[in-house]
Each structure stands twice: as structure tokens, then as C-alpha cells.
């Protein structure tokens, strides 16, 4: 909502600058997006009259102008071609700050000698005043411009652009903003009484109004103005409409816009002579009823919409747009003027269904008080009579089935303090509320009964009144305190610590965290399947997707991470390590999805940071596995890895991760077809863990074991064994023996040195007793037992 300060001044005295006013309004809830000031620099510029023009003694193109400022006269040198005796002009005295017509710089006006003649002052062009680029001609003012008046007072204005919140439809008007201004600056609003001449014929004789749907139309007021002339509206009205962002059209359209801006009440004008049967009926539209609206489009209506009809047909879509059949044209001579109150929800549905937005709809939707129709109707009638040279019929129509008294709201003044944390006296509270037009009556002790004015239907409860008090005294006045109540009992969700721990573990291993949108496209998800089989088990879908690649809630992080991997590979030559933590969303029938906290890491490329030492080893399966082991070890957990069957991963390079009997995730190399689908031409490794499952393990209390008192004995055992036997098989057997504290594999070999189909595994076994220092003999015995068992169960032999 744009509002001109000059226009505001018609209704309230303003002694502060436009910028200060904008700040007050902003602080009190009506945020000002911008203030455009015209004439801020017009100090020392006044309205003057050219009372004498004489030739310059030394120059043909220059003249000597004498300017009368009322109290004094000045003679200056002037070169403008349009210098005309008797014109009112803008005169700058010494010290005025003007824009130099030649350089475009701001200059301070100083006395000058021009071709030998002393000149103290200047007759200004539009450019010098910063109004336009024209600096050839001087600006000529209206003949009634008061001599000697500062130009800033005569022509200066400021336009304040407000962002009105949805709860304050009353502020979508000049009078509404004037009321706010008055309340915030301790002034009173003065609305001049509206008078106009009426003729003898009664309006009731000319038109009858019937409301058939009072649930959707609580009031319908109308007046009739006859014998009008359609012509342009005057300059002052043009200026104000343009300042407020509206395009002037003709006097009738402009007046209805002007009054809408001024009072906030949308109006509609009909060509009275096109209304059939001298009758207006307000009713619900019938299903599939059609009307051609003012913009020439045929609109199909339904029974949730409201139409204005004459005796024969619909003539307007209520509150949204008029009909072409009753439109005011240049030939119109008699105007039927409507000011009505429609149900906001009805206007919302109508506008939304028809895809029509308008200033009128915007205001009706937010709720205009029904009390506003008659004042606005009278104001518009007055202007049409004045500017359209018409005659108003006697009286006005006012059908008002939905009249409602304003409900009073009780306020206990102690609540103001307990809510705001600041002490305000009873008088202070009452003064603040009364300044806003709220009637206050002390009921008992500190209780006030407050009746809001008709335009403030948003004030319904005590908290609303408390906000009004806070707004008027200013939020700045509220002190700063910290919560003084006892701390509540906290039960932190352990998943936050787990996520934090995992994140730290991953960044310590060189992984960079990324964030992706939760929505993905089906195409992208499909790329994760090497066979590109259609996805039958569809994820949770958004009903109104922005784009096809933002249609489904992700069930995996893989696709996004591979996309990012590929994008970074275009400029990264070393290793790329990425991870994301967040949620995946699994569909649940008739319920909210199962949102599972998950983390996913991908990596590929070089194992070590690129350096001058030229280490070009590539990451492989055991790197990602080591990451997984390390992360879980940080949490004090010992995972077990089991060969997995994830379609998206390399068939022989993947493992499920288990904690005791529970699967918590998977790791492995991406299936090369999947990597290729994302334009990745190298092995990429994946680690994916369901944190919702992991958290039940990570929160198990740790138990301290005493640091060993007795020394360990370490023995190496190199075995030759069938290539198909896994390390885990061997390790499990060794670990099962008494005294064995730790088993580490330190060499794996297959090649020329061993027989085909065999491999060599070398273990370092650490033996320790908690009770005594072990002897060689004890250890030798266990070593032999282990070997025998490995031979009998796995066919292992000691490597010689």
C-alpha cells in the first residue's frame, strides 16, 4: 500500500519528517518498504511571481527578471526562453542547493556576476529541482500558487510504501494509516464532513436492492448520480493516484479508485441505463452461469460465488470484477454507485477459482468493516457530483442484514505487566488504547472494558489489546531480561550426539559434508539400478511438484551424492570424499512416512592427498571398510561384516555391517554401471549406515577393564590355506582359544610363492593372562592347539 504524506495530511497533522514517520509506522507493525521523498533538498526555494522582465544590457539571449516573493523582490539574470510576465515560478535564493544543469552535480547557489550584471538567486528549471532532465525551460507553477510559500510546502511530498500485515485490512487506506499516524504521534484524525447537493427525485424510486444471500453479503449500499460528464479527472487527483501506483483513466474510474485508496472500501460503478428493471439482486451464482467480465473474458461461475444481478442477468462478479454488460463508457450519463460488504472467504474462492486478482479482491479478502460502505459511498458521490458535474438523487440505498455490534474485550491491567514485563500505569494503558479509537471503561479495580472501533475487527482478545498498548508505547521500551524460572528437566535425544560424533569422525577422515534437497526425481533414482528396472515401489510423492526432478521424497542419499561426486570430478584431481547426514523417508500406508536418520559417505580417487612425493595409490574397498571400522570403533563398537547382495553395488565387493545380529548398514564399491550412469569413470565406494538403528547400540554404557598387569607374549603364525577361506574364518577360530588377547593379520599373499588355489595369511597373535606372567611353554601349547584346529577345520598348514 503506497500512501502520499500530503494526502495523509488531509486527515492528520504531521510534524515529523516522512522518514521518521515511516520508522514509527514500521516499529508499530506496518513495515515500510521504501520512502520516496520529493523536495527534500528544496530549502531556500520559494513560490514567486515574474513581475518585470527587462533586457540584459550586455547579452541578447539573457534577460533581467524581477521576482516577487510577497514580502520582497529580487532581480536576477535568466536565460530561459519561456520567461513570461505574470507567471508563477520557483525561485531559489542564495544558499539553495540545486542540481547544476550542465554538470549534474549538486551546487550551493552563490552570488554571481553574469556578463557584468550582479545576480543573487535563480529562477529554477525542473532539472535544477531534481524533478526531470529538462533544464532549458523554467518550471511554471499554477496561477493560484501562494507567493512566498516554501516550494517544499507547496509541491513537496513523500510516498511511503507499506507492507500491511493480513490482520490489518483497515490499514489498506489513507484514513487507516492516518489513524495509525495519529495514535503513534499523539494527534487526532479529522475527517471533513461530506456534503453535496441532491436533487428532488428519491433514489428509492429509481432503484431497488435485494440481498438474497445475506450470508455472503452483509450490506449493500448504493447511490445514483445523474447527468454526469465523463472526462479526465483533475491534476491533483492524477498526482495522488500516480503517487499511489494507480493509472488515471477518467473521472469516474479515478474517483472509485481514489475513494478505495482513501477509505479502503472498494466501490463499483454501473451505467445505470444498462441496468434492467431498476433492480439490483445480490445472489449466489448458479452452477455454470456465465458472465463476460470487464476484460472481455467469458467467465464460468459456480454456486460458491456471488453475483450482482439486475432484473434480467448478472451484471458483476461480486467484489472481484464488473460485467461488460453494465460497464461505464464515455457515453454514460447516469451512474449507479455500489459500496458493499462481502464475505472474505467467498471473495477468496471466487478470485482463486477465476484466477482474478485486483485491488478490490485484495481488500475484501482481508475483511473490510461493513460500517465502511456508507462513508465511502457518500465521499465518492460527492466527488462524482463535483468532478462529473452531475446531480445526486436524494438519499441512498442501504440494505444491511448483517449488522453486528462490536464486541467488548476485557483487559486486566496487571496482565499488561505480566505479559510485557514492563509496568505501565492504568492511565497510560487507557491513553494508548483511546488514541487508537478504542473506547475504554473501568469496570473494577484494574479491569477495563474495551470496545474497539468498527474498523478494528482484528481486536478480539485480551492479548490483542496488550499488543496495541505495546505498539503505542513502542517495543523499544520493553526491557531485556533473561528467563528467571527454574530450568526444566532435559532429556536430550541421543541421536544428536551420535550424528555429531559421526560427523566429526568423517571430517577427520577427510570427508566433506554436503546438503541436498530432500526431493528427487524418479529418473535419478532409477539410475541407481544397474538394470534400470522401473521402480515399482514408489516413494512418497508430492502432489504439486515444482519440477519432475523434485517429485519424490528421497529413500536414499546415493543419487544426490553421486551427482555431486561427478560435478566435483570435473575440477578435482585428487580424492573426492563426500558425506551427508539427514533423513530418508519411507512410505507408510495412511500415515506419516518413517523418517530415518541416515548417513551416507562416498569416496573415490587417490588414497593420499596429492603431494610432491608422487604417491598415486588409488582408494579401494579396504579404505571404505577401514573408515567404517574406525567410525564404529570411536563408538566402542565391533562390527561384523557379511557378504551382501545390494543390486546397486559391485557383486563381489560389498558387505553388510552387523552389530551382533542387527544389520546397521552396507558398504562396498558402486556397480560400475551405476557409476557410469552418473558419468563417473572410476571406482567409487559407498558407506551407508542407518543411524536410527545404530543409536540403540551407541548408547550402551561402556565398562572399564583394568589395564593389563602382566606382559603379553606375541607369536607370528604364517599359514598356507585354500584361497576360498576367509580371514574371518581363521580369525574366529584363533580368537576362540584361551589366553588369546588379540589377533591381527599382517600379510596376505597369493602368487608364485604359493601353490595355485592357495594363499598365505600371516597372523600376529598376542597372548596374555590376567593372573600371571605367561611362560613360553604355556604359549607354545596354545599355539600348537590353534594350529591343529586350523589344520583339521580349514586345512591350513604352517608356512615354512
Amino acid at each position, binding site marked *: 500500500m503506497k500512501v502520499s504524506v500530503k494526502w495523509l495530511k488531509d486527515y492528520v497533522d504531521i510534524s515529523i519528517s516522512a522518514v521518521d514517520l515511516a520508522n514509527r509506522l514500521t516499529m508499530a507493525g506496518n*513495515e*515500510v518498504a521504501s520512502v520516496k521523498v520529493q523536495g527534500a533538498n528544496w530549502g531556500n526555494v520559494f513560490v514567486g511571481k515574474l513581475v518585470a522582465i527587462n533586457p540584459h544590457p550586455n547579452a541578447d539571449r539573457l534577460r533581467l527578471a524581477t521576482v516577487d516573493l510577497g514580502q520582497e523582490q529580487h532581480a536576477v539574470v535568466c536565460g530561459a526562453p519561456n520567461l513570461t510576465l505574470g507567471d508563477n515560478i520557483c525561485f531559489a535564493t542564495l544558499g539553495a542547493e540545486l542540481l547544476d544543469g550542465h554538470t549534474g552535480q549538486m551546487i550551493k547557489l552563490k552570488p554571481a556576476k553574469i556578463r557584468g550584471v550582479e545576480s543573487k538567486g535563480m529562477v529554477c528549471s525542473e532539472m535544477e529541482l531534481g524533478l526531470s532532465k529538462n533544464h532549458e525551460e523554467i518550471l511554471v507553477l499554477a496561477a493560484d500558487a501562494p507567493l512566498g510559500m516554501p516550494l517544499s510546502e507547496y509541491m513537496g511530498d513523500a510516498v511511503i510504501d507499506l507492507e500491511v500485515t493480513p490482520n490489518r485490512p483497515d490499514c489498506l487506506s489513507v484514513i487507516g494509516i492516518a489513524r495509525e499516524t495519529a495514535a503513534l504521534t499523539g494527534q487526532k484524525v479529522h475527517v471533513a464532513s461530506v456534503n453535496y447537493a441532491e436533487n428532488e427525485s428519491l433514489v428509492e424510486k429509481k432503484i431497488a436492492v435485494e440481498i438474497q444471500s445475506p450470508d455472503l453479503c452483509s450490506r449493500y449500499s448504493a447511490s445514483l448520480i445523474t447527468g454526469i460528464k465523463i472526462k479526465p479527472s483533475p491534476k491533483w487527483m492524477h498526482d495522488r493516484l500516480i503517487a499511489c501506483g494507480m493509472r488515471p483513466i477518467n473521472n469516474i474510474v479515478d474517483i472509485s479508485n481514489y475513494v478505495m485508496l482513501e477509505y479502503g472500501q472498494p466501490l463499483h460503478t454501473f451505467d445505470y441505463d444498462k441496468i434492467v428493471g431498476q433492480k439490483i439482486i445480490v445472489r449466489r451464482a448458479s452452477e455454470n452461469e456465465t458472465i463476460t467480465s470487464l476484460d472481455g473474458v467469458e467467465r464460468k461461475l459456480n454456486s460458491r460465488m456471488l453475483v450482482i444481478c439486475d432484473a434480467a442477468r448478472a451484471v458483476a462478479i461480486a467484489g472481484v470484477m464488473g460485467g461488460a454488460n453494465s460497464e461505464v463508457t464515455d457515453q454514460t450519463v447516469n451512474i449507479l454507485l455500489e459500496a458493499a460488504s462481502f464475505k472474505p472467504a467467498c471473495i477468496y474462492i471466487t478470485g482463486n477459482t477465476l484466477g482474478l486478482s485486483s485491488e478490490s479482491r485484495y481488500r475484501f479478502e*482481508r475483511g473490510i468493516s461493513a460500517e465502511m460502505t456508507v462513508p465511502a459511498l457518500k465521499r465518492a458521490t460527492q466527488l462524482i457530483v463535483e468532478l462529473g458535474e452531475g446531480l445526486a438523487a436524494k438519499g441512498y440505498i442501504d440494505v444491511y442484514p448483517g449488522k453486528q455490534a462490536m464486541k467488548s474485550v476485557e483487559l486486566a491491567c496487571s496482565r499488561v505487566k505480566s*505479559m510485557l514485563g514492563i509496568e505501565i500505569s492504568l492511565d497510560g494503558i487507557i491513553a494508548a488504547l483511546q488514541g487508537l479509537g478504542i473506547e475504554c471503561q473501568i469496570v473494577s479495580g484494574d479491569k477495563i472494558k474495551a470496545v474497539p472501533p468498527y474498523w478494528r475487527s482484528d481486536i478480539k482478545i485480551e492479548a490483542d489489546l*496488550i499488543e496495541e498498548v505495546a505498539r503505542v508505547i513502542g517495543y*523499544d521500551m520493553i526491557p531485556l531480561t533473561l528467563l528467571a524460572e527454574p530450568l526444566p528437566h532435559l532429556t536430550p535425544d541421543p541421536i544428536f550426539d551420535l550424528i555429531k560424533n559421526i560427523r566429526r569422525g568423517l571430517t577427520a577422515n577427510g570427508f566433506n559434508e554436503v*546438503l541436498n534437497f530432500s526431493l528427487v526425481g524418479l529418473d535419478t533414482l532409477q539410475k541407481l539400478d544397474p538394470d534400470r528396472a522401473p521402480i515399482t515401489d514408489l516413494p512418497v510423492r508430492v502432489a504439486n511438484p515444482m519440477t519432475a526432478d523434485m517429485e519424490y521424497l528421497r529413500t536414499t542419499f546415493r543419487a544426490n551424492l553421486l551427482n555431486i561426486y561427478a560435478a566435483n570430478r570435473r575440477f578435482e584431481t585428487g580424492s573426492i570424499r563426500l558425506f551427508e547426514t539427514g533423513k530418508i523417508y519411507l512410505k507408510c500406508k495412511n*500415515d506419516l512416512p518413517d523418517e530415518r536418520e541416515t548417513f551416507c559417505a562416498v569416496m573415490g580417487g587417490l588414497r593420499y592427498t596429492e603431494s610432491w612425493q608422487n604417491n598415486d595409490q588409488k582408494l579401494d574397498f579396504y579404505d571404505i571398510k577401514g573408515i567404517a571400522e574406525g567410525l564404529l570403533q570411536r563408538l566402542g563398537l565391533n562390527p561384523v561384516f557379511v557378504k551382501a547382495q545390494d543390486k546397486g553395488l559391485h557383486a563381489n565387493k560389498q558387505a553388510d555391517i552387523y552389530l551382533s545380529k542387527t544389520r546397521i548398514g552396507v558398504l562396498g564399491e558402486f556397480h560400475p554401471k551405476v557409476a557410469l550412469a552418473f558419468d563417473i569413470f572410476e571406482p567409487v565406494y559407498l558407506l551407508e549406515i542407518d543411524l536410527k538403528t545404530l543409536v540403540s547400540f551407541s548408547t550402551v554404557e561402556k565398562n572399564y577393564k583394568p589395564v593389563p598387569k602382566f606382559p603379553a607374549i606375541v607369536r607370528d603364525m604364517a599359514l598356507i590355506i585354500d584361497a576360498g577361506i576367509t580371514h574371518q574364518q581363521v580369525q574366529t577360530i584363533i580368537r576362540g582359544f584361551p589366553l588369546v588377547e588379540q589377533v591381527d593379520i599382517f600379510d596376505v599373499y597369493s602368487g608364485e610363492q604359493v601353490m595355485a588355489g592357495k594363499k598365505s595369511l600371516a597372523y600376529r597373535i598376542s597372548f596374555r593372562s590376567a593372573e600371571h606372567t605367561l611362560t613360553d611353554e604355556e604359549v607354545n601349547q596354545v599355539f600348537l592347539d590353534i594350529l591343529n584346529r586350523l589344520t583339521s577345520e580349514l586345512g591350513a598348514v604352517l608356512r615354512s
Partner: protein
Amino acid sequence: MINQLEEIKSRAQSELEHIKDTIGLETWRVRYLGKKSDLTQVLRGLAELSIDEKKSVGMAANQLKLLLEDIFKQREKALQETRILSTAAKESVDITLPGRRPPIGHLHPITQTIEEICDIFSSMGFQIMAGPEVELEYFNFDALNISAGHPSRDNMSSSWIDQSDNTGKKSMLLRTHCTSNSARAIAKLKPPVRVLTPGKVYRYEASDATHTSMFHQFDGIVVDKHVTMADLKGTLYEFVQRFFGENRKARFRCDFFPFVEPGVELAIECAVCKGRGCSLCHNTGWIEVGGAGMTHPEVLRQAGLDPGEYQSFAFGIGIERLPMLRYGIDDIRLFYGGDLRFLRQF
């Protein structure tokens, strides 16, 4: 025999002084401390002596053995030291060559910001909570006093889920604010409550430099008997100063949100122009960071709380804005692009 011992001693000492390497040292050790050393010979000869002689020679021999062991260790250490020092003296590096770096990973700037926010509010007694991102219409709107047809529903254009609930209605959507979880929290927890929910929120909005259809917010709610707007102001100003620094000014002004009354907009002083006005702050000198207010009585009632007994404040602040202001990031989409050249800067 004592003389023999003296002779061994002086010979061993003088020989040891001339030894310069480990091989010489080992030869010396075998000669004087080994199984076939002169000293061992002397000790073997003890058997033929009288008891008194046995005692005195034995003692002297043992003392000599200890002495030899001792000077051997000293010499060994001295030689080791000489060797290490002379090697070290010859070594040198080009200290300007880059070090051997382990790979360094970075937390996402949004994560870093959220962790910082959580730390600040945790220290003020807030419990950090999470809630569903796919939310029921009830908690996202109705419980927050945003009834159907309310213009605020239009302002927060939402993405609805293409799935019916158990009543057959399409009533699930991607939450448009974390306030939905504040509504859940106060419905579930008994007062006193101090809860902070950071997380992802969604709007049906096209992307540009300042908007993305998904972004992050943190939303807080406090319920207790005597919570005031002054407490709200103190809490949020405390946050601003701890996040942006002691000198950063904050501002409360009146604003409207359906779930609070009185309502507040929180703004911080523009760092670019220090409040004088510039293009970043649209010449206002202030940058809006979030909304807040005293929880609307209807919201408390929906949660089963008596607004006559309990008072409450709530706030919601956008997260992306904070690192953008702190680091001067001019395009919100950078957070979601995954470009390592961007992410490694934080």
C-alpha cells in the same frame, strides 16, 4: 690376584677410551665381560683360595665387574650420542616444501551454524528436539491458529503429499516451518518447557539467489508461569550478541504472525552500512532475521494448556541468512550445490 684385577681394570679403561664404533665396543665387551674374559678367569680361580682370600678377591672382582659394566654403558651411550648428533648435523630439509597432509574434511556451514545455535540455546536451558518433516496439516497450521482460508496459509505456499491419511484426506505436507514441532512439543511435554527445534523446512517456491524450496529454520518455544515479552527480548538479544558479537544491535518491532500475540519481528543491524542504510538492507539499516512473540492463547489451548495459568513465548529464525550475513555469501543456492570449492572455505 688383586694385582691382576688392577691390571685388568687399567687395561680395560684405557682400551675403552679409544673405542670409536659399535664393533670395537662389542669386542671390548666380549673381552672384558664375556664368558671367556680375564675377569671370568679370575673368578674361576677363586675356588683354589682360602676363605679369607676368597672373600676379599671375590668382592674386588665383583666390584670390578660392576665398574666395567658401568663404564661400558657410559661409553655405549656416549658413542650413540656422538653418532646421532653427527647424523643429525648432516641432515636438513627444505622447510618450504608442503607437508604431508592427511585429508581434511569440512562440516557444512549450515551444520556449523546449527551446532553453534544449539550450543547457545542449550546453555540457556533449551532442550534440542527434532520433529517430522512430513507433517500433519493440523500441527503445521490448525494447531498454530492458521485456519483454512487464512491468508497466512497462502503466504506459506506448501507442498502437499500425494497420499491420504486414515480419514481419506490429503492432510500431509512438507512442513513450512519448524513451529509445527513447537506445537508438538508443548502438546507432549509438561511445563516448564524450553524447546528448540532446528531443521529443514519447505516452501513451494522457485529458486533464486535468496530463495530455495528447502531451507533451514530454528524454532523455539518456552512455556512457564511467568514468561514475559521482556524475557523473549532478552533471550533473542542474547542470541544475536553471542552469534554476531557483543556490539551487534538488535531490534524488536511489531509484526503479525497468527500463532503469536503480541507479535514481533527480530532484526539485526546491517553490518555493511552499520545502520546507515544500503542496498543490502533496502536502506533501512536493519536486516530481518525472524519472527517471534507471545504464544497465542489459542495455540496454548490447542495443546491442552490453560492460557490463564501458563504464559509462553515462541520464535522462529531462518538459518541460511545467518552464515550469509556473517560471511557475505550472496547466493543461497551455493549451500545446496555441493561444490567443494565453496564448502572447503568453512
